[in-house]
């Protein structure tokens, strides 16, 4: 896929400056500066422990930075405004994170009900999303335990999109699926992202998946950004020996 034109700087949705985060003694992120562009798909990649999931969680303030700042649409993310701003950010975790005590429908509409949307608005939105994600209407009454892994991810995506957020964050959304389902869902997800024109930030450890989705790949190692660019740029001009090694390890799956 061809990389879109670099948008002007004020189009950055997230702006991270000097962000550091520790877990006890170990450093998860060390002085990260990063801007994430509007309406693009950014993929965070790196070996386990590189800080990619930590970085994603900072964007919804599931964790707070020890030092440094995270701006969301030019607004400083704090504990006070995080609750409100989270409603404009959809979040999908690896296993879907669906609430087992609620059926698929109730999982999807939980926030809309909390915000007191009326029933016809909720029904219309659920209909749209089921169509978008190719989720069968009769599956909405099922509980998460009664759904397949792929169906659970579709429900999780519907839940994240319910309030029509500006941003979609996904933490290894396809990681737990078997290869065939994963392949189908990859194609569907890319179509959805391109159709919605939302800002997407996705975490994966799979370089081919990153190349498949990303406008921009951000490669992390030990809490630092090693290289930022398109897949082609990474392949053509690896920033250092580690990038070269990382690419070589996954080469067979890319070509």
């Amino acid at each position, binding site marked *: 896929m061809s990389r879109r034109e670099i948008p002007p700087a004020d189009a950055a949705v997230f702006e991270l400056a000097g962000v550091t985060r520790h877990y006890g003694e170990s450093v998860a992120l060390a002085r990260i500066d990063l801007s994430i562009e509007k309406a693009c798909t950014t993929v965070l990649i790196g070996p386990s422990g590189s800080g990619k999931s930590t970085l994603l969680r900072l964007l919804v303030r599931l964790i707070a930075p020890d030092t440094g700042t995270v701006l969301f649409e030019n607004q400083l993310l704090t504990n006070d405004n995080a609750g409100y701003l989270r409603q404009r950010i959809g979040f999908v975790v690896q296993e879907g994170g669906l609430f*087992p*005590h609620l059926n698929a429908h109730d999982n999807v509409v939980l926030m809309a009900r909390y915000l007191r949307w009326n029933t016809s608005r909720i029904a219309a939105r659920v209909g749209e999303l089921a169509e978008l994600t190719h989720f069968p209407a009769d599956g909405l009454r099922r509980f998460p335990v009664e759904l397949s892994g792929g169906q659970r991810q579709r429900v999780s995506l519907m839940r994240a999109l319910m309030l029509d957020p500006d941003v979609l964050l996904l933490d290894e959304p396809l990681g737990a699926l078997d290869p065939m389902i994963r392949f189908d869902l990859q194609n569907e997800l890319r179509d959805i992202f391109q159709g919605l024109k939302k800002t997407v930030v996705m975490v994966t450890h799979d370089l081919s998946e990153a190349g498949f989705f990303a406008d921009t790949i951000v490669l992390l190692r030990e809490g630092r950004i090693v290289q930022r660019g398109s897949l082609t740029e990474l392949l053509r001009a690896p920033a250092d020996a580690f990038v070269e090694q990382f690419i070589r390890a996954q080469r067979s799956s890319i070509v």
Partner: protein
Amino acid sequence: MSAAPTRVHAAVTLLIACTVFAAAPVRAEIRAGSKQFTESVILGEMATQLIGHTAIPVTHRAELGGTRTLWGALLAGDIDIYPEYTGTIVQEILADHSLTDANAIRAALAAHDVRMSAPLGFNNSYAVGMRRVRADQLNIRKLSDLVSHPKLHFGFSSEFMDRADGWPGLARQYGLPQTDVRGLDHDLAYRGLEAGEIDATDLYATDAEIHYYDLVVLEDDRDYFPAYDAVWLYRAGLTEQAPRSLSALRRLEGRVSQSEMTAMNARVKLDGVPAARVAADFLKREFGFEARLELPSATDDFFRYTREHLLLVLSSLSAAVLVAIPLGIVAARKPRFGQAILSITGIIQTIPALALLVFMIPLLGIGAAPAIVALFLYSLLPIVRNTYTGLRGIPPQLTESAVALGLPATSRLRLVELPLAMPTILAGIKTSAVINIGTATLGALIGAGGYGQPILTGIRLDDIGLILQGAIPAAMLALLVQGAFELGERWLAPKGLRLSASRR
């Protein structure tokens, strides 16, 4: 039991406000009390019938427990009068060995606003008894003879084991070397003697069993046991409040001989005649009046016990649920504070039930209120712990998903976390309920009634049938509640979680 609702109300007030206060209720009714043994119950009945004969309203709070309970209830104004023994007053209540004559005792009691009548006539001293066969075999006649038989097994009533004028003093006075000395219920001790499991036990000089079991009372050849003259102890206020009832009571002074008391004890204990009947017969013979006797039927008793038991269990358990779930939530949210909450509720659980009940008396008097508070405290731990465990056991990615959706903390708790923890919380409430039903039988010891009442009376009278009248309904109730909870879980626990559990 007419004042039970106000007592319960007092308990609830205490639970909610966590403020401890006990006001003596204003009432015209006189309350007689008695301890947890036959003679005390007969004397308590006599007091009740003597006062009742003067047409003053009176109730008998029978079988309230030991000296501490009765004395505490008298000081708190929960009872107005009860039968006591001079030896117990000196050694146990006042714990002042210098009090040798009645006037000195009266002066010391006056400091507590308590008065003492003249002796009723008999001296129910402590004594030590052995089976005649065994005593003959070892040639033991006097307490000092025990010194040369260090291998003997002793079984003493729990009160005798602990009190200053009981076993510790006896062992010191006579230099007794025995080491196998167990504390057990007075009535069970007789059976231990008969079975040969123990060789000697403490007795009261008027015990019906002395003849029945063919026991030898060992001579107190070094004058260890003080006199235990039966007397009335009553609140000083009674002299102005109800002078007529007081003079009615004092008619009994000097009228009950040791042999008469022993015979009455035997009628109740060995012949199974109700204590009220035996007391009435004595009063009729002695004073020629017919006491009003209303002996309730077994069915009446059963419904009353059930009502009382349910009151204890339901009020203490619902209060515990209301307090323990929020405590469990706080514990799960604030780890350090949580450890403190879990430790404190855990420590409460280790306090013996009987001790906790007795602690409550100075604060809440006797009856349902202190029992409810004690049961409430016991019910906390399983619910707090399970709420804590249930909330902490929620997979982190579910909590993360709820936060990321933008739900604020309180809604997260209501919509996600509590429903997920619900099966565990319900299991905790079930555990509390079942423990509560069993422990509530001890409430009878401090006048709360319930299924414990027939159990206590049954132990006192050595009547297995009566014990079962309390034990079987208590066990049935526990099973019933357990079953009800299992049904309740079907609709209280979220359906999705039940599906998950069945697929695991």
